[in-house]
């Protein structure tokens, strides 16, 4: 439990704050699900990949949708295939286990080795969804009703759960988790993240782009603030486009990469004109 193999210390492609790293290890040692919240693009999904890589475990990802059901994560019983086979006489229809397909949670529990299970965007599903998972996440076992077979984890998976806070999660569920809120990165932290993706970026370009990026995020009325991933894409566009760094704050080149809504683009252009006006008027 305390050996080095189960210690997460970050990975080269993912910048985790010391607090985040600590919390990951607390969850691993206490064997409780790690619940991660934060604005879009703050690296919640990528954290699970980084944990899997850092701990040297396989990653199983379960992307929750609004129609997801907890049961489907365990297994589905393919009745249609069985019905089909029974009518067209293919294979041994009496053997129900041939028609049981394990879901992501089911596979994680059935795995031979310890795995990282990512339950991504849990708040997309019904309010009942997290509650329906309580037993399996606590006990780490489940029974396949059709075959009476019980699957029990040989080693408890490391469970990482992400949420965008679209919905409140039930209290009973929250009580069992270890929780961390990933704050939007400060400029300094953002620099290290960006450098992971663009190690050779010209410094002046980075400076001025960051300045404009954080300025944009503060414009009142912007509905969808640009996130880390958009910044990364934008820097790529600026570098490839050979944009003169001094032009960035003046022209907001490739603004569409950062802002996706017409209203936000209008708001930014408006703020840009205002900024120009105050500057001209003030001097």
């Amino acid at each position, binding site marked *: 439990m305390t050996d080095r193999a189960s210690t997460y210390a970050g990975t080269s492609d993912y910048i985790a*704050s010391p607090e985040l790293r*600590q919390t990951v*290890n607390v969850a691993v040692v*206490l064997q409780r699900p790690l619940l991660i919240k934060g604005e879009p693009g703050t690296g919640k999904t990528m954290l699970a990949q980084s944990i899997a890589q850092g701990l040297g475990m396989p990653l199983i990802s379960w992307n929750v949708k609004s129609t997801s059901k907890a049961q489907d994560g365990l297994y589905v019983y393919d009745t249609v295939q069985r019905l089909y086979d029974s009518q067209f006489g293919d294979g041994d229809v009496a053997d129900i286990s041939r028609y049981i397909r394990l879901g992501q949670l089911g596979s994680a529990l059935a795995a031979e080795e310890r795995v990282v299970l990512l339950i991504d965007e849990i708040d997309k599903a019904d309010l009942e969804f997290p509650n329906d998972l309580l037993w399996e996440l606590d006990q780490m076992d489940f029974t396949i009703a059709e075959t009476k077979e019980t699957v029990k984890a040989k080693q408890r998976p490391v469970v990482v759960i992400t949420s965008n806070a679209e919905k409140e999660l039930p*209290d009973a569920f*929250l009580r069992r988790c*270890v929780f961390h809120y990933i*704050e939007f990165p400060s400029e300094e932290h953002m620099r290290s993240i960006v450098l992971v993706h663009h190690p050779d970026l010209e410094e002046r370009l980075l400076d001025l782009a960051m300045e404009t990026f954080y300025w944009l995020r503060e414009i009142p009325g912007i509905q969808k603030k640009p996130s880390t991933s958009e910044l990364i894409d934008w820097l790529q566009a600026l570098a490839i486009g050979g944009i003169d760094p001094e032009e960035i704050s003046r022209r907001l080149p490739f603004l569409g990469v950062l802002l996706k809504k017409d209203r936000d683009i209008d708001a930014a252009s408006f703020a840009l004109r205002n900024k120009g006006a105050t500057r001209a008027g003030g001097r």
Partner: protein
Amino acid sequence: MFTHFFFLLRAHKVPVSLTEWLALTEALAKGLALSDLSVFYALARAVLVKSEAYYDQYDQAFQEAFAGVESVAEITDQVWDWLNGDFDLPGLTAAERAALAAGLGGMGLDELQRLFEERLREQKEEHHGGSHWIGTRGTSPLGHSGAHPGGIRIGGQSRNSTAVKVAAERRYKGYRTDATVGVRQLETALRRLRQLSTRNDGPLDELDLDATIDSTADHAGLLHLEWRRPRRNQTRVALLMDAGGSMHPHINVCNRLFTALDRATHLKDLRRYYFHNCVYDHLYLDPTCHPRNSVPTARVLQELSRDYKLVLVGDASMAPSELLERNGIIWWSMANEEPGMEWLRRLDRHFHRCAWMNPVHERHWGSIYGRDTIALVRNVFPMFELTVDGLTDAVKNLMVRR
């Protein structure tokens, strides 16, 4: 001090359960925070606090509990005292205390203590430079070199006092939901207008294909249809908004509510109307409240079925005559046949569920200029303050079935 922390957290309204408190005890006993207070700060928060909305209250409780504490050892000593003692926590009910004792029984105290002391010894031996996982430098995950991305300093020269200082900075004030805050949080509150509406309402008129297949298979291939309630959201909202002069100081929060509602695309329908101080026989279609652009209130009531959730937004602060008298309407050029109060009651009778959102915070309702009319309006509608928490309560109230 350790148990006092529990009490302080609850006093600051952080919803800490015994399960979580036990988890913290277990984590401490397993030696997850041996070296310094900053690690303890982060550990306790990760285990006890489940929403960033409570980070600020956590900071306050932390600061009050541990001001002056020099090392985690002082805390862990108390953890053992507590574990070996009667498990008493300030403010616990007898039932909670029993549950706690039962839960702790399962932890194997002796074993824990042995592990803990071993861990402590190892740590002293390895001291700081090592790569053991509870070390405090280098690659150690539970250690803390460098700065927190948001600016929280973890580590530093005087390690043990920084955690309290950091807590004292109250950096998470902005995430609180009991103060008026941003659109995003309001949106989250409004999303609940959907969840509660899907499960219980509406006819069973959608074919449930999966269940039908299962059921058909169970009946040896004889077709068995299974039906379910559609997952469509049925919630419709009528928003009536005070656009009077006394609302000006609240314009920002009202705008945020508007934006949030705009983005609440999950609603089946959203109607908005405006009024000035009180609702009378006409409702306005824009915030300028010009009679040219108005509709008779009676017609609105005809158009909107009773299952619309009625949300009124206003400070409910006016002269009592505006509410109670004929021709009490504030515009001298206009007249109302019936007192405003009559119209409010009519609205209440028409709609199944209503809520009045007041941008004035609840603690002022009894003392400000409008207190008389606030009290009168509250006799008719359940009133909530226009904060995230208030909106959350209001939404819950709106979703209760009648």
